[in-house]
């Protein structure tokens, strides 16, 4: 999974798009002194190669009942890690699923309303996946930072 790294022109374009992606290709081109066609082609290529994703993000502060939950998952047998992680990735409510080295086998992150909602989610959606041995959940009390300009972009 080795991806091309962005060159200087790519980075300059992304810098504009990271602030406000609704800015037109023409505006970016004018600011950078390149043609509009260059900007359009670069953006298209970066999106196709999954180097960037242009998307709407919404402010968690607008939903006061949303709390972040870290769910650490241990599998029965190590050869089940991949299949459990793949099943987890299908769950729409999970925003992050990673196979981990250390602490536990898999980390999944989601938003819940409260502890009851977390318990219900873990019991009904995670514990039923074949291969899940045990889970250990941590509830957030203050979501201080998330740099939304950075993520692992998965095909």
């Amino acid at each position, binding site marked *: *999974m080795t*991806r091309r*790294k962005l060159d200087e022109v790519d980075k300059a374009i*992304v810098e504009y*798009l*990271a*602030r*406000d*992606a*609704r800015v037109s290709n023409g505006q970016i081109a004018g600011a950078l002194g390149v043609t509009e066609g260059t900007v359009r082609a670069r*953006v298209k290529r970066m999106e196709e190669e*999954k*180097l*960037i*994703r*242009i*998307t*709407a*993000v*919404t*402010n*968690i*502060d*607008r939903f006061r009942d*949303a709390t972040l939950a*870290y769910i650490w998952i241990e599998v029965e047998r190590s050869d089940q890690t991949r299949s459990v*992680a*793949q099943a*987890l*990735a299908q769950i729409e409510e*999970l*925003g*992050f*699923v*990673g*196979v*981990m*080295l*250390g*602490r*536990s086998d898999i*980390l999944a992150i989601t*938003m819940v309303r409260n502890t009851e909602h977390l318990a219900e989610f873990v019991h009904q959606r995670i514990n039923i996946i074949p291969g899940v041995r045990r889970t250990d959940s*941590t*509830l*957030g*009390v*203050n*979501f*201080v*930072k*998330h*740099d*939304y*300009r*950075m*993520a*692992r*972009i*998965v095909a």
Partner: protein
Amino acid sequence: MNNLAANAQPALIELDDTDNAIIELLRRDGRMPYRAIARELAITEATVRGRVRRLEESNTMRVVAVTDIEAAGYGMLLAIGVQVENRSPEAVARDLAAIPEVFSVNVVVGAQDVEILVVARDQPALDELISRQLAGTPGVRRLTPALALDVLKNQPDWVPFHDPA
């Protein structure tokens, strides 16, 4: 800083079905033209334009480019539990949030006091980040890291808004 409470926030707005439908379409494709959104939802282009402006000005939604961490030059992603001593977890969390490689910071309850997600270019950079920057932050007692071998999903839709440095 990154603490939302410190920022003056515009008034909350009520979202209706049209707002939510527009947000959904822009989540899938942030550069979808207003005209195409209008056609999809059977409303006028002016309505779409006005709604998007209202969502942005009220600090409810932003349409942004998200860069892949590997394309940005970061080869490693870790989830690190932080135990705090002699300082409030909130204060330590704010200091950790100021480090660019620390891209997510949560004050939590449980065995750890703060959970962070970090990226590093390579192993020497990771050593520098963990051994010096994170361990050297006042109030940090112990760091318990886990390295991501593979990330199968990472779609942070709901996030705290802070102004990028």
